[in-house]
């Protein structure tokens, strides 16, 4: 292997003089005393390699020896990843000793001693290729497929495969042979470079199914598709993280991967603390059993922050290849972009807008394009749905990360300061936000067959009310309460009804925080029925108090179990109250 010596240090960028061939993005280790610091080559000029160190470079001296590994940053994939907490380089955080993180301590992602009960799927003599299922083990409740390593190219024949039984993760469970008779031993684990997409599937069609999140403003107004992409930009304090946590708690996914990328440590601690207690409303199991956390908080080394989103995506693709629905959440992709900026700056590259690297847009879009629903080679489907948050500087959406992401993601959940200030949570802007999936014919077909044939019309109608509400509000603000017809007030308050009852949701209320699609349908239909009614008011002063009371009763419905006596009681109240003002 190639070796080298450190010739310079500035921040976490080191220059290394090498004595042999070295590859772009190759991983090397800097031998600082008894510790090894991992670094990635990001530029090469002649025999000088520039490497970003995934650790603090304090005390590093010129002349320190460097060992190259010959491969890019890889993660280990196999049964036992779920429920774990990793850092950006896939070190198991729970295996690290002491309260403080020690530099150069890399721990195994998988538990070496673990044994799993293996059930073969493939038979001796079968022809297989990369990613085909050889067998499966139970990882908790997940059918974890043991696959032909993704790195193998071409066709192989199964020469032997073990019988059902308990095996260690590094035991050989199958032997494959290529057409020349070269043999490959397969264990339950394999490695894959994080910056390369796993592409062993038949095709990646357009998304055609809704990914239910339990968040009304998303499911009803801006639906996310299974295998879709979306992003949540918003100034600080608008509830990006709360919204993402709400999605992760309720989403209809088999696996949730949470990449905490350059954000607050206490937010991750919240997941560590709450998820083992919270129950997945769909399966009745603990949320932690389907969750995996990649955690590179803001005070952890910057370069590893960039790696963390790729690590998360690669693990997501791995589970997708088993035919599972994976939801990947990254908070926040702006921190990742900032890590890119810091490095580009140290490399003295010519900067683009706001000193971000020029290729920011292409880096972001190629990352988002790794999401999607796929048909695997065996006909099954699997998907990675990706939702990232963006933290725009100063809350201004005209900044490079937001703009680049807008080009790549199909759903846009803009969080608005004004809504957050008036505590209208989730503060998703009802007018600027969009989901392109609502326009997909495939998706419309799905809504028609699975929810109701009027669903899309009803949603568009509700959106239109909200827009009209805003327009009339502008008129009222200009002309005054008594300067406009009473009807204007009614339109405005109908829009408020939609806002308060359907768009706003209490993320901290046990019942309101989770709204299954069936309940959303019921509420949307009821609210829209009320919006369609003609009300009779003598003067504008009567409108606001009436609707406030109506909204209050509707809210009690949202806080009640569905279905329940209480719920019916409040619905009855709503109906009676509506009838009292209905134009006969």
């Amino acid at each position, binding site marked *: 292997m190639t070796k080298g010596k450190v010739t*310079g*240090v*500035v*921040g976490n960028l080191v*220059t290394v003089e090498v004595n042999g061939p070295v590859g772009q993005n190759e991983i090397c280790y800097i031998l600082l005393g008894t510790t090894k610091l991992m670094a990635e080559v990001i530029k090469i000029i002649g025999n000088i390699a520039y490497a970003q160190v995934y650790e603090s*470079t*304090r*005390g*590093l*001296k*010129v002349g320190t020896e460097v060992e190259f590994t010959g491969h890019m940053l890889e993660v280990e994939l196999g049964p036992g990843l779920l429920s774990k*907490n990793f850092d950006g380089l896939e070190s198991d*955080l*729970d295996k*690290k000793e002491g*309260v*403080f*993180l020690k*530099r150069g301590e890399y721990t195994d992602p998988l538990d070496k001693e673990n044994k799993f009960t293996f059930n073969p799927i493939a038979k001796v003599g079968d022809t297989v290729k990369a990613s085909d299922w050889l067998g499966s083990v139970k990882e908790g409740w997940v059918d974890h497929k043991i696959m032909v390593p993704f790195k193998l190219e071409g066709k192989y024949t199964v020469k032997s495969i073990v019988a059902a039984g308990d095996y260690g993760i590094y035991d050989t469970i199958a032997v494959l042979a290529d057409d020349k008779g070269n043999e490959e031993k397969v264990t339950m684990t394999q490695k894959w470079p994080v910056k390369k997409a796993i592409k062993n599937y038949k095709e990646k069609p357009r998304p055609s199914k809704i990914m239910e999140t339990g968040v009304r403003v998303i499911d009803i107004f801006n639906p996310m598709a299974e295998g879709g992409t979306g992003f949540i930009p918003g*100034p*600080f*304090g608008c509830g990006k993280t709360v919204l993402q946590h709400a999605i992760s708690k309720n989403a209809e996914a088999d696996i949730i991967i949470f990449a905490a990328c350059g954000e*607050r*440590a*206490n937010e991750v*601690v919240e997941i*560590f*603390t709450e998820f083992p207690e919270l129950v997945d409303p769909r399966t009745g199991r603990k949320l932690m059993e389907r969750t995996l956390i990649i*955690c590179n*908080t*803001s*005070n952890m080394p*910057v370069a590893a922050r960039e790696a963390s989103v790729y690590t998360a995506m690669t693990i997501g693709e791995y589970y997708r290849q088993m035919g599972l629905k994976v939801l990947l959440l990254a908070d926040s992709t702006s921190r990742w972009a*900032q890590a890119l*900026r*810091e490095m580009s*700056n140290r490399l003295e590259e010519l*900067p683009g807008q*706001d*000193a*971000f690297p020029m290729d920011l847009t292409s880096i972001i879009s190629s990352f988002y394009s790794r999401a999607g629903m796929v048909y695997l080679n065996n006909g099954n489907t699997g998907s990675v749905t990706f939702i990232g948050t963006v*933290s725009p*500087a*100063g*809350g*201004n959406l005209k900044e490079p990360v937001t703009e680049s992401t807008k080009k790549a993601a199909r759903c846009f959940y803009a969080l608005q300061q004004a809504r957050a*200030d*008036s*505590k209208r949570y989730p503060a998703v802007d009802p007018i600027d936000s969009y989901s392109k999936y609502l326009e997909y014919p495939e998706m419309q077909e799905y809504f028609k067959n699975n929810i109701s044939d009027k669903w899309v019309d009803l949603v568009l109608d509700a959106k239109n009310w909200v827009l009209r509400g805003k327009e009339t509000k502008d008129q009222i603000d200009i002309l*005054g*309460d*008594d300067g406009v017809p009473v009807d204007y007030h009614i339109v405005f308050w109908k829009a408020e009804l939609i806002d308060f009852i359907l768009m706003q949701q209490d993320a*901290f209320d046990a019942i309101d925080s989770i709204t299954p699609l069936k309940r959303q349908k019921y509420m949307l239909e009821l609210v829209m029925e009320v919006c369609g009614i003609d009300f009779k008011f003598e003067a504008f*002063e009567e409108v*606001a*108090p009436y609707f*406030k009371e109506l909204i*209050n009763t509707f*809210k009690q419905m949202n*806080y009640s179990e569905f279905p329940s006596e209480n719920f019916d009681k409040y619905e009855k109240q709503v109906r009676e109250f509506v009838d009292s003002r209905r134009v006969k």
Partner: protein
Amino acid sequence: MQGTAFQKIYTKINKITKATCTLTAEGIGNEELAFVDGKPAQVVKLEGNEVTLQVFQGTEGIATNAEVVFTGKPPVLKVSEDLAGRFFNAYGDPIDGGPAIEGEEREIGGPSVNPVRRKQPSELIKTGIAGIDMNNTLVTGQKIPFFADPDQPYNQVMANVALRAEADKIILGGMGLSNDDYLYFKQLFDNAGALDKIISFINTTDDPSVERLLVPDMALTAAEYFAVDKNEKVLVLLTDMTLYADALAIVSNKMDQIPSKDSMPGSLYSDLAKIYEKAVQFPAGGSITIIAVTTLNGGDITHAIPDNTGYITEGQLFLRKDTDVNKVIVDPFRSLSRLKQLVIGKKTREDHPQVMNTAVRLYNDASNAKTKRDNGFDLSDYDERCIQFASDYSVKLLAIDVNIDVDEMLDTTWDLFGKYFKPTEVSIKQNLMDKYWKGN
């Protein structure tokens, strides 16, 4: 802190800029502490045998033949119980005339806490200020800044919070503190009889600005000693972080780095996060809570410093003069404590979350009504009642001179609800209304 025997002394500097000097030396470690002509300096760049040093006090008067001594280690702080009650400069040397501290040397700016070894913060910090305790409850292990214009009394409020917070140790990191403010803190702590639990690291406006880059790390190294080794509850006060960030910008500019937004270095977010993320609740009971001050320019929070700070800290506290009642209040709209959810309604009374939200919503209705009035429109009866509620709420609860218990804050708010509103207008969950509603 000068060099010991056998240390090599360099006497040839190749390059001098305003903040840095470069010389040829071997075997030097990155971030190592050195002395140039007796002035403290730190290694910031190694390129072959060329070593670039950042001289904290500036390079004025340094000649090319100045003596350069390397200490072989990064900046350290000596820690022991003796730190309590003492005042230090940015290098951790006493400035109160007392003896030097004997104790274990700790590298400053040490490693981060493993996230899985943290405990979720869950202990309420009582300040008596309703604008904080009721609307923006603080929790041990939290990090939160005051966002305030320079003319607002943030240091006074912060000092009050510190003294009421029942912390085992209070560590003050003063950056660019005016001498008057420094003496204010000193006297206040002295008068409160709390001096023995206070440790101060002070860089005043008289001191070189780049020196203040060491202050937060010094303060937090001391904090970690008390929180980890002694399991104490430590409150760290950092004022003013804007001046800290300005010093960062000066250094990065001198190092020829490409500035990003507002002439700040591209690494500002990570630099600030390294400091603020030292706030932590340890499972063994010790904790570090950070209350900082970020001064604003004309209330502009989109500037890179408050903006990046807001993304790192767990909320922010805004002070504002309420001209209707002529009092400084904790602004209920722009202030936020992200960790309040962990304690309100759990460590405090069950009605706390809803009462808080409702009061803020009604206060918001009042401000809409005021806008309406200012634009010359007639106000409805509801608008009038909102405005009356708002001024009562401002005086009795939001003002920074309030000092009452949380239950009393909630009771007072229920009184106001009952006085001005109908049950349907407050729109609170029925079971809470049944229990606490005081109106008709």
